[in-house]
């Protein structure tokens, strides 16, 4: 509530204060025969108090002055003069200012305290995020580094004791670890590109068939025997988008699916053209995402609560960042029977030259 009213702009505060005082006075005036003028004073006082809860001190003071004057002029006997005869009425008149000031001071104090509490909360959240980041990063980076150091130590210190098979295995581990490090660092670099807002997409014509197979080719070590179906709409036009960004989006989605789905699950990539939009769907027959976490998975460093596999929680936030850099949208849904569906939609210029061009 605090935040909301803070955002209510100054002009609005003045308008609302003045209008509510006028409204209350108007209503009271029309029924002033039924109620005494002191009741009117109380009603106006309540109005000022309410205003002072929500608004800054100046609009409150103006409301107080206005109410006092209106009450004085229209309601106190000897109407339509500013004359006040009884001492009680003078006291009442002054009361407006006292109430307005006291309320305003209290409200300001409360607001300050709320602000401090809010800042504290925010600090805690940042700290929490920072800790999550540190945990996942230190795990994701330190694991491959430990592997490399440990394996090279073994190779150096006990080369004569190791069998050829073991040497070979150690070398494979070093290689795997290095590629893992490389991927994590690339992710961090890409994320910082998203964060800094410096992505300037370089649009050029390309064939989506090429992107899909470029991605699959780059992931062939991870794919091995996991089946990936590709369904590309026939007679798909050429799109004019940033090849590199589209490549990275699809790469991250497929890579993510490969990391998290169970062995039996199948990944399907669908590419379509709807009106003037490129439509990419990556779906799998795995277990899908917990419904309450669907909205969170695109947030950076977010990792599913029960997630066990490695990952920094950056892949999907990079997807979101890159899609949005091209004015597109990304959605995640669960299918009726379980699996997850990522749907990417990016507006693009189209060219059907590939369907008509023949010399």
């Amino acid at each position, binding site marked *: 509530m605090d935040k909301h009213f803070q955002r209510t702009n100054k002009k609005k505060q003045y308008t609302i204060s003045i209008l509510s005082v006028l409204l209350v006075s108007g209503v009271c005036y029309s029924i002033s025969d039924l109620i005494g003028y002191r009741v009117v004073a109380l009603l106006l006082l309540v109005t000022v108090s309410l205003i002072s809860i929500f608004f800054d001190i100046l609009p409150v003071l103006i409301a107080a002055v206005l109410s006092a004057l209106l009450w004085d002029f229209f309601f106190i006997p000897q109407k339509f003069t500013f004359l006040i005869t009884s001492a009680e009425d003078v006291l009442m008149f002054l009361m407006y200012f006292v109430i307005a000031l006291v309320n305003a001071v209290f409200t300001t104090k409360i607001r300050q305290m709320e602000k401090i509490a809010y800042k504290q909360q925010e600090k805690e959240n940042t700290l929490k995020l920072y800790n999550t980041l540190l945990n996942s990063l230190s795990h994701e980076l330190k694991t491959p580094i430990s592997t490399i150091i440990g394996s090279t130590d073994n190779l150096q210190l006990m080369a004569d004791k190791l069998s050829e098979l073991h040497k070979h295995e150690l070398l494979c581990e070093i290689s795997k670890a290095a590629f893992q490090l490389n991927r994590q660092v690339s992710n961090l670099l890409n994320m910082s590109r998203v964060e800094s807002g410096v992505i300037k997409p370089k649009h050029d*014509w390309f064939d989506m*068939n*090429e992107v899909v*197979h470029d991605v699959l*080719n780059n992931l062939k070590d991870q794919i091995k025997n996991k089946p990936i179906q*590709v369904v590309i709409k026939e007679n798909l036009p050429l799109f004019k988008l940033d090849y*590199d960004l589209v490549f990275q989006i699809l790469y991250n989605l497929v890579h993510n699916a490969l990391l998290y789905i169970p062995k039996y699950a199948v990944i399907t990539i669908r590419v379509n053209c709807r009106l003037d939009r490129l439509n990419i769907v990556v779906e799998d027959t795995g277990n899908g995402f917990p419904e309450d976490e669907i909205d969170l998975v695109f947030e950076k460093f977010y990792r599913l609560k029960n997630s066990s596999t490695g990952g920094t929680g950056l892949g999907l936030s990079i997807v979101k960042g890159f899609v949005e850099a091209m004015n597109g949208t990304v959605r995640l849904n669960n299918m009726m029977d379980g699996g997850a569906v990522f749907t990417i939609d990016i507006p693009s210029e189209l060219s059907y030259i590939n369907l008509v*061009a023949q010399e």
Partner: protein
Amino acid sequence: MSHPQILVIDDEAQIRKLLQITLHSNDFRTIEAIHAKEGLAMAKHNNPDLILLDLGLPDENGYSVLKKLREWYTKPIIILSVQSGEEEIIRALDNGANDYLVKPFRSGELLARIRSSLRGFYTPTNQINSSGLVIDTSLRIVKKDSTLIKLTATEYDLLALLAKNEGRVLTHQYLLREIWGPGYISQSQYLRVFIAQLRKKIEAEPNRPEYIVTESGVGYRFVLNENS
């Protein structure tokens, strides 16, 4: 040319060591320079058979080193770079580099690039033969498993240009300029279309190309399949 000499210009001692081991154990001789000034002097003095040039040198911008080398040096230059941005790569290729490798790179990849750069430089040929695909540039014919393949003039020119530069990446702009002319440099959709058509005609699986390989965002590379 039994032991070609390679000049390595890179300021990182680790990378120089790695390159030295990789190259020596594959019968290349190496000389090393740790900054641009030294590199330019060594190139002039030794006239090596190939130069591996790191783009991020401490004393001078890599592109300007490349330009200075290209004023007189005509043999292959392969760029090493930590930046994987296509723009940098395209810029280096446009400034006269024959090929590029993004760090971290695989040793096998490095050797393949070096070999094909040297081969392309020393053995001009009018017949390219790669696992069942034969391109005869004197007769302008292409055969796949001994069957003649019908190509349009543009398709043939594109394939021949790629194949003549076998193993090397050719940028989109370069291909457009060479095949369609300088006015077509921005018409990348033509290139996409003709590459797709060519793949349909020569590749066993057009979606898993073996001959014409996509270099993401940069260009295309014709790959010779040698174990055929």
